[in-house]
């Protein structure tokens, strides 16, 4: 049932010729799709690409029928690819046309073109199988992909295409970035926005076409979108995004190819898509850029810091009258619960900012210094808002409460310079100036 260690090793090092052809092919496809997909996603055209890939089906069948009618070998891969490319482009043009001439929005235009052209393709496929000459039996392999049918020349084509898209994307990186970020600005600068858009969508069409054989037209769009989308959870710059997306696509192809080679009867395309999808879920949860865990961690840390500053300010105010703070007088400072105050106080004790004496809680020297610092920042900010930001003074305290926790040290230094340390706002308790 389970593959032996020897089998696994054999697949991993691409020992067998057929496996090698397939796995190298899907790896190259992953690179090309990852690169082009990054810009596709930034251009917000993911669904257009889906319509494009569905529109290739009538193209494949029409190409087959034409070639059979001309007495050629019906399944010449090159001919089929040309047909797929042409119809993919027609699909995109139809979407643009519908959007321009009617009041329908993008989603409706895409839905119409995708379903109608796919339906047309299915009908034509039926007609193609009825044709007396030629053998259309393998054509439906393009719908869900049939990686096992890949031969060395297919892999070579995919590798060359991957290399070319890599070069084009690198060379036109600046131009495509301008197109995706702000096309109006690009147009004013004099970039031919329409032509750049055509270049991008042509690259998408080419990648879709080379994905048909291995991944299939229904799932081809996943190769473009999923690696690029997961890369966004790891990188924040376009350059690293491109690299990460290409690597994710490449490794997804490799792992998917390996798994489908080891598990009998597992289709390669869907397995690759599942591997990429699994990586997306992992990125979505654990990615350092806006992953769920990272985001929750940041929120938790911010809340914790805000709470600490609140309790320190409360202690500072209470202890200015009496260094031994009573629990109730701390509790009265803000709207917080007893358990919350208890928890915060025990945290302060753990951090050695507070000690518990018989008469009450006392700020230690370190705690006093910290509290003074917090209060000072708070006052500086209040002063800034009152003097400079035209906010009604009675609203200032709540605002300051929120914003001071967002301020970094550099901003505080700026405020100090702005006000001068002797120009601090009047306060019931004179401030100790921290060094």
């Amino acid at each position, binding site marked *: 049932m389970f593959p032996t260690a020897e089998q696994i090793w054999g697949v991993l090092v691409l020992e067998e010729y057929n496996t090698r052809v397939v796995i190298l092919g899907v790896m190259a496809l992953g690179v090309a799709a990852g690169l082009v997909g990054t810009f596709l996603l930034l251009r917000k055209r993911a669904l257009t690409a889906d319509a494009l890939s569905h529109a290739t089906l009538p193209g494949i069948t029409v190409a087959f029928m034409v070639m059979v009618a001309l007495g050629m070998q019906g399944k010449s891969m090159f001919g089929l690819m040309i047909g797929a490319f042409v119809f993919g482009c027609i699909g995109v043009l139809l979407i643009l046309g519908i959007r321009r001439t009617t009041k329908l929005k993008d989603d409706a235009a895409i839905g119409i073109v995708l379903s109608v052209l796919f339906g047309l393709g299915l009908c034509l496929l039926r007609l193609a199988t009825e044709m007396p000459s030629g053998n259309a039996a393998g054509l439906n392999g393009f719908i869900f992909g049939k990686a096992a049918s890949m031969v060395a020349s297919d892999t070579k084509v995919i590798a060359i295409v991957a290399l070319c898209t890599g070069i084009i994307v690198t060379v036109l990186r600046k131009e495509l970035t301008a197109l995706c*970020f702000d096309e*109006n600005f690009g147009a004013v600068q*004099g970039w031919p926005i329409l032509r750049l858009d055509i270049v991008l969508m042509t690259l998408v069409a080419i990648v879709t076409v080379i994905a048909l054989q291995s991944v299939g037209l229904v799932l081809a769009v996943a190769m473009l979108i999923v690696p690029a989308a997961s890369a966004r959870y790891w990188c924040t710059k376009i350059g690293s995004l491109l690299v990460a997306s290409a690597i994710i696509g490449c490794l997804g192809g490799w792992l998917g190819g390996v798994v489908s080679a080891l598990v009998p009867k597992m289709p390669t395309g869907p397995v690759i898509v599942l591997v990429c999808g699994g990586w997306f879920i992992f990125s979505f949860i654990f990615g350092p850029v806006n992953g769920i865990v990272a985001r929750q961690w940041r929120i938790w840390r911010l809340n914790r810091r805000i709470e600490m500053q609140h309790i320190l300010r409360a202690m500072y105010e209470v202890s200015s009258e009496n260094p031994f703070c009573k629990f109730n007088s701390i509790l009265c400072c803000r709207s917080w619960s007893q358990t919350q105050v208890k928890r915060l106080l025990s945290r302060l004790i753990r951090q050695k900012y507070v000690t518990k004496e018989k008469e009450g809680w006392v700020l230690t020297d370190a705690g006093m210094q910290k509290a003074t610092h917090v209060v000072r920042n708070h006052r500086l900010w209040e002063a800034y808002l009152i003097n400079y930001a035209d906010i009604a003074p009675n609203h200032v305290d709540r605002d300051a409460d929120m914003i001071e926790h967002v301020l970094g040290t550099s901003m505080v230094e700026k405020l100090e310079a702005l006000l001068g340390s002797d120009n601090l706002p009047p306060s019931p308790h004179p401030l100790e100036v921290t060094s």
Partner: protein
Amino acid sequence: MNMSSETNFLGSEHSPSAAVSVHDLTVAYHRKPVLWDVDLDIPAGKLVAIVGPNGAGKSTLIKAVMDLVPKASGLISIYGKPFRKQRHRVAYVPQRESVDWDFPIDAIGVVTMGRYRKVGWCRPIRTLDKKLAMEALKRVGMEEYAHRQISQLSGGQQQRVFLARALVQDAEIYFMDEPFASVDAATERAIVQVLRDLRSLGKTVIVVHHDLQTVTEYFDHVIMLNMRVVAHGMVQDVFTNENLRKTYGGRLTLLDEAAGLLARQSSKA
């Protein structure tokens, strides 16, 4: 080079010293005209506000000048020549909402875009471009945020990044689409300072503006627009209650009717 010897393709009725000349401009979106017969000469070296109610065609006017929207009719010239020959002399600050601020780029990356055209096709960004971008960020008080992701900037900071991107282009005419819209006080001051610096360098700045209260304080010239030009000239001359009422008050029944009629006719055709 002698400026007066340059041929003005609009003919002599337009002043050759005008930075921007708009002649008989009409723009229609979806069969409904939004700008009617706009005729303007915008003098060089001035701060110019375009004011008018929502839907008056303020953004459309500057977009039409920059060839971003198709014109139904009209001629535009920048320093006496068509826009497409003068685009290197023009910088544009679009509305902040017009782009996706989640885009994976940092502040200096956006500002560097202002240099893309000078860098040219297929060439990488040079150190010089980065340096100039940094200087532009300094001018708007944003150098500390150069390597911050743009999604993490506040609205006012994003607006200043947009401004810096236009500054780095080193243009002669600046079009700004509502740069003061929902920005903080610090940003408003920074923008005003930049506008004044630009004017003292002899640049022309044309600003779509919403806040009528600051027009007198910030600008030299004002264009009062409501589908057509209601008034245009020095702020102290034309920014009057009478003209404001004409621009903002009431529906312009005649014009609206004409627009509706035209829309019906063309939909029948």
